[in-house]
């Protein structure tokens, strides 16, 4: 039996129906995974994680979909592998890769399928006419706050009677965030009890090997140390800037907004930027005041979210980053006010 539904489950393995299919048909305990000739699935799982680390996107081809059992199985296995590696960066990168791949695929789906995925991922959504879907405001706020572009701001949206309307592409973006959250949370769960088969260990090592070739600075497991007030991503930029290295526009924005959020005064911040090779007092002053909301309409800029940092290649997490979505939340182990992903 190979219906559309099975293909869909293979294409979006985070959907609950994939879990159902697996639990109905396959024994997912570690020992039996080892036995049931799941080598192919394990291989594909490694590929998923490598895809995420190398291309920042997990690709699913038509052929992968036809191999639907392997495809479905590879997803929970990939999660197990990522959990085993126990590194925050790998977790985050994998979640991003899965969600990006899913986003890309969703763009080609019919309204019906798109709404179906949205429904299952807890985004909800009502089709208003062919081109617009509306989402409840609280859901929108939960998912869209991590986007930086002004057009995502609620004030610029079509808000009416408790809903925000948007096109299909934007709707898919919201689902992407939820997929990202879901996958990330999954990788935080402990590895299922029982001895981890050797094949899994080898697979995890293979991933670590690839990754350390890619990201020399990140691939060392960060030892647990005393937590600092500044999250590692921002601390790293600050140190580089202190050494007089030229920071990108975005990095400067990150540092400036962070300092503003920590109530450092404008002069102190400008002073800090004075070490930059291309420093000009008036320009820096203008920019910092703009970010602080003193100029330009009074809009205060916020520190970019962890997502945005990650997509810009600036996330260097340590264990205190676990579970947080925003650098200002660094070290807050309990994130109880962040609603959990269903």
């Amino acid at each position: 039996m190979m219906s559309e539904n099975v293909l869909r489950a293979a294409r979006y393995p985070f959907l609950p129906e994939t879990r159902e299919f697996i639990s109905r048909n396959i024994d997912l305990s570690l020992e039996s995974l080892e036995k049931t000739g799941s080598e192919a699935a394990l291989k594909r799982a490694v590929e998923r994680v490598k895809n995420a680390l190398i291309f920042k996107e997990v690709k699913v081809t038509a052929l992968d979909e036809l191999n639907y059992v392997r495809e479905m199985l590879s997803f929970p296995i990939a999660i197990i592998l990522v959990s085993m590696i126990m590194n925050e960066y790998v977790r985050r990168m994998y979640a991003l890769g899965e969600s990006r791949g899913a986003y890309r695929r969703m763009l080609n789906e019919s309204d019906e399928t798109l709404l179906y995925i949205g429904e299952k991922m807890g985004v909800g959504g009502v089709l208003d006419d062919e081109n617009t879907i509306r989402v409840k405001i609280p859901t929108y706020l939960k998912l869209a706050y991590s986007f930086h572009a002004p057009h995502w701001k609620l004030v610029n949206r079509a808000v009416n009677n408790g809903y925000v309307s948007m096109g299909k592409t934007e709707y898919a973006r919201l689902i992407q965030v939820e997929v990202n959250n879901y996958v990330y949370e999954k990788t935080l769960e402990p590895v299922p009890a029982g001895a981890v088969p050797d094949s899994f260990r080898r697979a995890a090592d293979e991933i670590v090997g690839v990754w350390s070739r890619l990201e020399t600075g990140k691939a060392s497991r960060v030892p647990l140390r005393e937590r600092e007030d500044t999250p590692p991503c921002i601390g790293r930029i600050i140190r580089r800037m202190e050494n007089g290295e030229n920071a990108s526009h975005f990095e400067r924005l990150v540092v400036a907004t962070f300092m503003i959020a920590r109530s450092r005064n404008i002069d102190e911040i400008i002073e800090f930027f004075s070490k930059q090779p291309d420093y000009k007092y008036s320009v820096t002053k203008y920019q910092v005041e703009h970010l602080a909301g003193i100029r330009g309409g009074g809009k205060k800029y916020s520190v970019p979210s962890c997502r945005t940092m990650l997509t810009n290649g600036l996330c260097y997490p340590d264990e205190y980053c676990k579970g947080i979505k925003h650098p200002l939340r660094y070290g807050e182990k309990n994130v109880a006010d962040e609603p959990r992903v269903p």
Partner: protein
Amino acid sequence: MLQTSLEFLKREFFKYYYENISRLVPPEPIRSREFGFFLEKGKGMFRHKCFNSLRDFHEFILNEIPLDIYVSAANYEDPCNRDMSEKKLVNAELFFDIDAESVAAVSEEESAWICQKCNQYGIGLRDGCPSCGAPTELVRLVSEKQLNVALRETEKLIHVLREDFGIAPENMRVFYSGNRGYHVHVNQEDFLNVTGEGRREIIDYLLIQGLDEKELLNFLKRGVSIGGVSLKGVKRRVYMRVLEKAGSVEKLKTSKRETVLKMLEGIVEELKVRIDPVVTIDMHRLMRMPESINSSSGMVKRRIRLEDLPSFKPLEEAIAFGDEETCLKVKIAPRFRLGGRTFGPFKDEEVELPAYAAVYIVCKGLGEYAGR
């Protein structure tokens, strides 16, 4: 404030709470809320308090007769934990504060200044003492005019919450704060879990901050009528108001871009709801307890039904005390209206006032109790 005055206040407060204790019902569930109190003048807030039942809460109030009572907007797993993050926030109501002070200035005739250093005082707003130069303490009376402006803002807020945010009227409670402001509590299931970041977005929406003016400007300059744009939400509201104000789309087409932009900015100023952003963003905020006395004025934080909002008269409807004649030594007091009557102005005189007005003067720090 003299000890006798404080005792007078406590006696009057006790009477109010004794008779009205059943009106003090904190939001449910009471076990998951944090409470805070000012128990004595000049002392810090006594907070992280929690209660297992409404009875315990009422008992505490009648025993302590607090000067001010607060309850958290949030529900916590462990509300009495002194460590904020250990309290474990579950969710929180949306809480809006419209401060009359920030929407309209209070007039000179409704204010007084006092110099604590050389004990001089007078009517008006003076920053420095005319005889010794020390910074003065400014006392602003509750101004009806100011409150009316704040009330219009409150109506704007309610309108946007209903129309745009889909908040059902039964999930919205509106209060006069008892002094110089209005509060709106929103207790709607799906909004309880909105995070601090999300609340910031709501605030930006209400304050119309970060609005993409370019898009609007382009439509306006091309002279597109409201039927021709598919705008919704606050953008639509702004757009319509600009068209209304300009009179005709033709006029906009021929105006300079800067002129139209100026106009647009003016409209944003007019349409924004002037709430205090910090209050709403901070989910750990304590809210003044509904129907409790506000010790800055001696009036109560009074619930106003939505349908009564347009005709609400704070200075009559939020009075907590009776009208037994009470003797007061008044330092200085501008003319003021309270409970439908007009009093003052007074300077250095002993006067007899009804209890509610006496409490008001004592709470404002303008006079001391002198017996009954």
